[in-house]
């Protein structure tokens, strides 16, 4: 008799039944030692189901197909000198940020999901986390492959891994994932799968990748969308785990709410750099940060939180402040990097007259009033040969580790820098915002020993006291990777390649 073909639901049921077992002679608590300490109560793991019902055979089949498509494009890109087709070499600087800040974070996510894929007590959730762990490894590998072509032609790519562990602004994504990975499995999965993947990564992988396509970068848009096709599955894991936790026990609701509040804010702060990449680093403009935020957070995220209301989950309070910051975020971030551009591993510049007009149009309430005069003055100084760089080192927020450049947008005072501080065990700690201060005060032990790059430089732990010493410690080729794009070796090489005088 011919075997009956199984449908998707039956296949998935068999997979999740056959891979799990009862603990008959060992203590289940010893097998899953992290399942209870966060206060989460699970009464029935069998209620968890992956709505995609992806079995291992289907997973490998579709992942293999994605990889084949991706690598065919990489080959074509390299064989046809694809780097010559980007809109302008300034664009490549956004890729330097991607490789140094985001790709190593993919590896950290791989590590974190390997942990949750072992520690979650339910087989369905464990399999989904294990698949995600493999996905994240695929993401960093494909990103390194894509960037390796740019590395042959531009500065700032070669030491990305060394840099990620040391360079001042890269401590922001690094500490974000360290914070998540040193949490328990449930907080980790709420932080990364829900707050970051479901609510926020669309902003990075969708409009920025469309922007890459718009700027002629075939390799990046392809790895971006290939990664994002995995993200669609990760987002689903995030939403399912949240609904599952909230349905399992009412005591889980306040714990989950606290994690959502914390991680939405942490993730949003991390995306400051994406705001800047979209508004300032794409020579061909496609969508502003503000428009992307409205579409992917206010609209899509709003629908999500209305859906979660029935469980007693509320939109995090920080959303109000974020709505006010959207007119300022990209401008303040780019200005900060512009003024510290001598110590960064990518080039900065003042926007051209046309770019400033685009910014005025997209930010009618803020750009002309607060930011245009600053960039025009900077352009004037640069023209005179007095390119402005900030001499000192910035104070960093103890929680998000970002230089404290944000302003009192919540209070409608966008020209006043926001400073908060608190005392803990006789020491004073500084923060960029009320939300970062609240996160610290909730778990001060977790943040008091943060490796803050500026403190480390002052303590003499980063190669020396001069910029040149610190650059050496970062393995940054001073004079080649940093400072203004105008006059850089990247610019010279680009002009030579394109035959521009």
């Amino acid at each position: 008799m011919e075997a009956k073909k199984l449908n998707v639901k039956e296949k998935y049921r068999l997979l999740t039944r056959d891979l799990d077992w009862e603990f008959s002679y060992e203590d289940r608590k010893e097998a899953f030692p992290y399942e209870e300490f966060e206060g989460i109560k699970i009464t029935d793991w069998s209620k968890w189901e992956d709505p995609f019902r992806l079995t291992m055979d289907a997973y490998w089949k579709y992942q293999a197909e994605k990889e084949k498509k991706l690598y065919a494009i990489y080959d074509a890109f390299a064989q046809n000198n694809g780097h010559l087709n980007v809109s302008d070499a300034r664009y490549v600087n956004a890729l330097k940020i991607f490789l140094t800040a985001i790709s190593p974070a993919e590896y950290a996510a791989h590590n974190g999901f390997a942990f949750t894929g072992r520690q979650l007590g339910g087989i369905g959730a464990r399999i989904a986390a294990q698949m995600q762990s493999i996905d994240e490894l695929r993401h960093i590998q494909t990103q390194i492959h894509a960037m390796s072509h740019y590395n042959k032609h531009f500065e700032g790519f070669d030491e990305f891994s060394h840099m990620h562990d040391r360079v001042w602004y890269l401590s922001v994504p690094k500490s974000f994932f360290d914070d998540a990975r040193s949490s328990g499995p449930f907080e980790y999965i709420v932080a990364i799968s829900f707050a970051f993947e479901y609510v926020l990564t669309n902003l990075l992988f969708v409009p920025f990748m469309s922007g890459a396509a718009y700027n002629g970068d075939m390799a990046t848009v392809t790895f971006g969308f290939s990664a994002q096709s995995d993200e669609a599955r990760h987002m689903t894991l995030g939403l399912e785990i949240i609904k599952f936790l909230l349905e399992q026990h009412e005591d889980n609701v306040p714990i989950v709410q606290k994690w959502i509040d914390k991680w939405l804010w942490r993730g949003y702060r991390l995306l400051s750099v994406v705001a800047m990449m979209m508004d300032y680093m794409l020579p061909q403009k496609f969508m502003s940060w503000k428009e992307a935020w409205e579409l992917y957070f206010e609209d899509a995220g709003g629908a999500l939180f209305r859906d979660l209301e029935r469980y007693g989950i509320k939109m995090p309070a920080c959303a109000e402040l974020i709505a006010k910051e959207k007119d300022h975020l990209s401008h303040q971030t780019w200005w900060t990097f512009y003024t510290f551009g001598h110590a960064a591993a990518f080039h900065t510049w003042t926007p051209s007259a046309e770019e400033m007009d685009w910014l005025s149009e997209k930010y009618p309430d803020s750009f002309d009033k607060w930011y245009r005069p600053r960039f025009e003055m900077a352009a004037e100084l640069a023209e005179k040969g007095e390119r402005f760089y900030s001499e000192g080192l910035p104070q960093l927020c103890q929680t998000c580790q970002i230089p404290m450049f944000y302003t009192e947008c919540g209070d409608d005072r966008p020209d006043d820098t926001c400073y908060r501080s608190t005392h803990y065990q006789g020491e004073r700690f500084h923060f960029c915002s009320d939300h970062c201060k609240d996160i610290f005060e909730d778990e001060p032990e977790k943040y008091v020993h943060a490796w803050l790059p500026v403190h480390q430089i002052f303590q003499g732990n980063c190669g020396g006291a001069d910029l040149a010493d610190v650059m050496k410690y970062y393995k940054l080729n001073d004079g080649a990777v940093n400072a203004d794009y105008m006059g850089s070796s990247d610019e010279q090489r680009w002009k030579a390649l394109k035959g521009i005088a």
Partner: protein
Amino acid sequence: MSRVQIGLQDNDESRYIVAAIEEDNPTAIVHYEPALIRIENEGHLQINRESVSEQMGMDWDVQSIHVNLVTLTGNIDEDDDYFRIEWAN
């Protein structure tokens, strides 16, 4: 009603999927963005295996949506014959 959204890579395969979506969800709005096709609809959006297979002229496996899927919002309901996203609010 909240809007649901799905994003697909702009390529040959997606073209047929989008045609099937438009046929089965007459109120859906299709946006063509660089390299991306983004489709929005009020409340829910459904992709039917039969309609996509009809458009492609070959049998289409619902799970192969993963190859071209870029992003989505809403609660997912997937079976052998359809893929559906929906908000309950």
